[in-house]
C-alpha cells in the first residue's frame, strides 16, 4: 500500500467512516451468521418450529438491511438504517423478554433469545450503539 499523495484525514468524519466502519463490520458478521443460520433451520427442520425459524429469517433480513443502509451514504439511507435498527432493538427486547417469561414458546432459540445471550449479548448492545451512532451523525438541515 503506497501512501496517497493527498494526506487523508486522521479521523474521517461521517456515518460510514472511522468507527462507523467497525460498526458496519460487526453488523455484516451478524447479517452473514443470522442468514446462514436461518437458511439452515428453514432448509433442514422448518416443521419443527415454523414460528421460531421464521423469526430467525426475519432477524436475518433486519441485519442485512441494517448493514446495507449503514454502509450507504446519504440522508435517505440514514433513515432506513434508523428504522431497521429500531426494529432490531424492539425485536431483541420483545423476544428477549418473551424467551424469559415463556421459555416453552422459545425452546428453539433465535439470535434474539434471552437478549442475545448466546452471542455474548452483542445483539442487545448493537442496536443501542447503532442508534447512538446514527444520532451523532444525523444530518442537520
Amino acid at each position, binding site marked *: *500500500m503506497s501512501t496517497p499523495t493527498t494526506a*487523508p484525514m*486522521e*479521523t*474521517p468524519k461521517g456515518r460510514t*467512516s*472511522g*468507527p462507523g*466502519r*467497525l460498526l*458496519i*463490520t*460487526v453488523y*455484516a*458478521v451478524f447479517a*452473514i*451468521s*443470522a442468514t*446462514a*443460520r436461518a437458511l*439452515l433451520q428453514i432448509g*433442514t427442520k422448518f416443521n419443527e418450529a415454523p414460528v421460531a425459524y421464521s423469526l430467525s429469517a426475519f432477524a436475518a433480513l433486519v441485519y442485512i438491511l441494517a448493514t446495507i443502509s449503514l454502509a450507504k451514504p446519504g440522508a435517505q439511507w440514514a433513515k432506513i438504517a434508523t428504522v431497521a435498527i429500531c426494529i432490531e432493538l424492539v425485536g431483541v427486547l420483545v423476544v428477549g423478554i418473551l424467551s424469559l417469561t415463556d421459555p416453552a414458546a422459545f*425452546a*428453539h*432459540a433465535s*439470535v434474539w*433469545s*434471552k437478549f442475545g*445471550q*448466546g*452471542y*455474548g449479548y452483542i445483539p442487545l448492545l448493537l442496536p443501542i450503539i447503532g442508534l447512538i451512532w446514527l444520532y451523532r451523525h444525523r444530518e442537520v438541515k
Partner: protein
Amino acid sequence: MTLDAWFIIGAIVGIASTFVCVVAAVMKKKPNDITLLALAAVELFIIAYAIGSLVRLLNGVPLVGEPWEFWGYIFTAAALPVAGFYWAMMERTHWSNYVMGAVGITVVVMMARMAQIWYGTGLSAQAVPALETLRLGLGS
C-alpha cells in the same frame, strides 16, 4: 465439544491476531506489516485447517455432522480475512485495525462451531433446546 489441536491452535492464532490488531488500533496506528501479517496468519490457518480436514476425511476419519455445513463454515471463515482486508483498506485509519481485529475473534467462534460439527455435540435429544442455545449459528 471436543477441544482438539486444530481448535487450540486456531484459537491461539485468532485471539493473537485480534490482540495485535486491537493493540495497534488503540495506539492509533494505521494498518502496517505487523497487523496485516496477523490477519494473513488467520487466513493461512484456515487454509491449513481446510487441507488438514480434507486429508483426515480422505483417510476415513469420520465427520459426525453435516459435511456441507462444515465446509460452509470453512469457506466463510476463509472469506472473512479477505473481506476484512478489503473493507479495512478502503479507508486506512487506525479504525482499519479494529475492523481487521474483528476477523480473528469471529474465526475463533466459528472454529468452536466447526469442532462441534466435526465431533458431534454428544448431547442427548432431551438436551436439544439447551444445545440450540449453544449452537446459535456461529456461536458456541
